[in-house]
């Protein structure tokens, strides 16, 4: 098992390299000059050249890339052009916030999705199945920023139960697990959870229906297991795929939903990414994308490892 994990870890190195190249190139190939956002429009050519030199934009791309990777490996993602603060620090704060939001949203989505999926799969073609499938289709297809706004209108504006925006009285810097702060988390998390909920529900429904139609389920009944015992077999057979889907969903949500975080002004990576794009803040953009991509790679690795632990058939392959 340890060997397998190490092997998988080794395989992620080329992936990580590829990701870093793509991150770097994408940002540099994109049209527009990163300095236009910080310099006044009438800045002299000399000043522009000087600034370019300070930020290192005058060197060949390959050298820029080498320097960037070298610094990144030391944990230095450069300085944000717009704010002048270190990118690593900004990212750390944003990542923490997004992580909270994404994990909570995925958990809610996974639990509800599994519930709907199992009910729909077990009672296929009944009205319960139709209801559960209807809810999950809504979950997948409703525009989430719109749902977010609707929730804000209902729970913040009309009922005045929950705050509409932000991450608490002190901004993103002093988060605490108390009601004053947690209540800010509820609406964005619920809005976000609708995405994994729908996808997990549909996956689990298909899985359960497929498993129930297989002969080994008859085999379990033939040996005298009660419904609870048979359910255990269904769950273990469905778990690897369901968890893999959940892991990937968490990955997508970690990228931060730019739209949802913007609607709720939630100071996470999506929000940060949005800012970086609009301000053409190259170091911030690069750093954010890179870190998010690496997160995704790591998550895939984790999902693979967990799947191997759950499903004995994967290991030998």
């Amino acid at each position, binding site marked *: 098992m340890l060997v397998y994990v190490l092997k998988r870890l080794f395989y992620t190195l080329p992936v990580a390299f590829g990701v870093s190249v793509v991150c770097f190139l994408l940002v540099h190939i994109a049209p527009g000059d990163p300095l236009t956002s910080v310099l006044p429009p009438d800045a002299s050519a000399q000043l522009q050249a000087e600034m370019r030199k300070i930020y290192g934009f005058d060197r060949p791309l390959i050298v820029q890339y080498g320097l960037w990777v070298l610094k990144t490996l030391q944990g230095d993602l450069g300085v944000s052009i717009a704010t002048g603060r270190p990118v690593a620090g900004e990212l750390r704060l944003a990542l923490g916030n997004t992580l909270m939001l994404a994990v909570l949203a995925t958990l809610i989505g996974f639990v509800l999705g599994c519930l709907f999926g199992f009910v729909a799969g077990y009672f296929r073609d009944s009205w319960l199945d139709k209801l559960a499938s209807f809810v999950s289709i809504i979950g997948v297809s409703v525009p989430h920023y719109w749902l977010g706004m609707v929730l804000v209108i209902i729970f913040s504006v009309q009922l005045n139960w929950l705050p509409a925006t932000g991450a608490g009285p002190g901004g993103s810097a002093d988060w605490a697990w108390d009601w004053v702060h947690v209540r800010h988390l509820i609406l964005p998390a619920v809005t976000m959870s609708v995405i994994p909920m729908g996808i997990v529900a549909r996956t689990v429904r298909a899985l359960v229906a497929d498993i129930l139609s*297989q*002969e*080994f389920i*008859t*085999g*379990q*009944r*033939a*040996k*005298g*297991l*009660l419904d609870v*015992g048979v359910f255990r*077999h269904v769950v*273990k*057979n469905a778990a*690897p795929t369901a968890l893999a889907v959940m892991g990937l969903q968490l990955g997508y949500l970690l990228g931060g939903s730019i739209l949802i975080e913007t609607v709720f002004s939630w100071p996470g990576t999506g929000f940060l990414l949005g800012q970086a794009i609009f301000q053409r803040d190259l170091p911030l953009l690069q750093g954010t994308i890179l870190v998010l991509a690496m997160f995704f790679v790591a998550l895939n690795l984790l999902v693979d490892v967990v799947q191997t632990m*759950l*499903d*004995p*058939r994967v290991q030998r392959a």
Partner: protein
Amino acid sequence: MSAPLVEIENLNVRFHGPRTVHAVNGVSLRLEAGETLGILGESGSGKSVTLKTLLRLLPENRTEIGGSVRVDGVDILSLDGRALADHRGGVASMIFQDPMLALDPVYNIGEQIAEAVIRHEGCDKAAGWARALDMLTRVRIPSPERRLKAYPHEMSGGMRQRAMIALALACRPKLLLADEPTTALDATVQIQILLLLRELQREFGMGMIFVTHDIGVAVEVSDRVAVMYAGEIVESGSVRDLIRDPRHPYTKGLLAANLHGAVKGARLQAIPGAPPALDAVPAACSFAPRCPLKLASCDLARPPVAVPAPGRSVRCVLAG
């Protein structure tokens, strides 16, 4: 004489769906404790359906079962919930045709056997695993300690079937139902499994119903054989009588179609035609359209069951 282990009276099974299938039509059979009955028939003759009825494994919502089925004195058709689950695997258990499909791929063999033992005997985990090990030893799986932790996909076909047998016998059932247990295996492994089954059957003193389409296999394991055609038992009797003196034209045809003793290059004697569709309850002899000895009366009514000798029965007008 005590009550028989299995007593099926006038069993009728219909499957409802886009069209109704009359899978089993008026089957009656008895099995004494410790006896082996072979049910012989081709695909779609209703042999597996009859067998599955004994564990009530047919899909409840689209199956209609009529008649009476008693196992060990208990009316199987009236069982429900926990009582039915106690019956399955406890009183009667089944060996499936393909253990690769019938065993759960993500649980190892030991867990799957122990689970059944714990369910039926209410023992703790250690006792369940001890029984699993004991059973793997009895079915002669090499290095059974190691195999306890093996998953179905890690075993060979013969080994999987041995594990399946170990699972079926783990709770000491009185009745073993074998649904073509050797069909998916190599010829050499088939014989090993048959010998093992016969031996275990004697050792455990179980009654066994063995479903197969292979005459050689049926002869090898059975005391008595029932031949099924189109959802009916057309002939039954001891293996000896049936082989030496088949009375029903279908049984005669089956024996003649056997490869043993066939001359190379000569055409095999197959029964012409195909079995009837089972859209309706047969009103006449179902074999009549293919029968070489057909009489005019065969098309008019179902032939009565004739008893040409004690312990034998033939559903044919010529046999009486």
